[in-house]
């Protein structure tokens, strides 16, 4: 009985260690996908507001464009950190 338990345990343990690669891949994919949701919406909001400003006041389009790139850069950082985690988790 004990030997049976030991065998079952060893098989289970083996199954667990065998799954880590796959779990890492799933975690990497899910992690990047989840990390991209917020920045995606955020960049949309930033660009929409910038286009609004540019069409209302074309004479200040230069300032709006520069500020838009700044906003995009700050928002995008979160998605890029998600991408870094994705690269690090890849098996």
């Amino acid at each position: 009985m004990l030997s049976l338990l030991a065998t079952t345990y060893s098989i289970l343990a083996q199954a667990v260690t065998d799954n880590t690669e796959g779990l890492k891949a799933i975690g990497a994919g899910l992690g990047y996908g989840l990390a991209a949701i917020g920045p995606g919406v955020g960049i949309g909001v930033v660009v929409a507001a910038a286009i609004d400003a540019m069409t209302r006041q074309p004479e200040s389009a230069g300032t709006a464009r520069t500020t838009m790139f700044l906003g995009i850069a700050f928002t995008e950082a979160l998605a890029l950190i998600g991408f870094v985690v994705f690269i690090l988790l890849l098996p």
Partner: protein
Amino acid sequence: MNILALKFPEVSQLFYWPDFAFQGTPLAMNKTVLIYLAALVLTLWVFLTAGSKKSLVPSGMSHVAEGGINFVEDSIVMQTMGADGKKYVPFLTTMFFFIFFSNIFEVVPFVQFPANAKMSVPLALSLMVWVIYNYLGVKNQGFFGYMKNSLFPPGVPKALYLIVTPIEFFSVFIIRPLSLAIRLWANMVAGHLLLVTFAVLSATLWDSTYVGAIAPAAMLVIMTAFEIVVSFLQAFIFTILTAVYMGGAIHPEH
């Protein structure tokens, strides 16, 4: 890795280049080092050839250099630092051209590797920027004034400083240089991965089906154009963020 029953190279293989000279010493050379040297030489070449001809009417390389300097001055320095920042135009222009040249090798045939997809030089550049804006802040506002302005932003209720100050410390002194480096590096890695994916896909599908290679090859062309824009945009964003940080250190918010 097997994706769609196609054989893909490992991700780490895409960014690994063996040393071919001075192996085992700190001066070991690989493809990335060569690309950086080429970017350095190109930057020097643009400005030295433009500067050697002293004529009133710009011609040839002078157009490139003057266009670059005007672009950095008008749309980066004047927008973020104002007239006080004009003495930093040479530094920012050099940085812009160096980053742009090392990025653009991503789409240059037979080289096709963005040198900034290795973390070393983006990190070194961002640490340099970190030193510079902290130095400028201490120089222009004094050590305690700089700490007060960056850690205790004005217009915040007194009790909130308990939360705001640690967050500001973390974001100004740790997150800023890291995010600057990670932004450049990760954008280049992502672009290189995209191009490699479509290139491998079209090559393998051409081997097996011929017709299936049309769509990935078209995507490869579109993505190459997109990556040219990205390599310009990342150089621009790196430079403009540097200018913003330097401007914030020179002119504190009141």
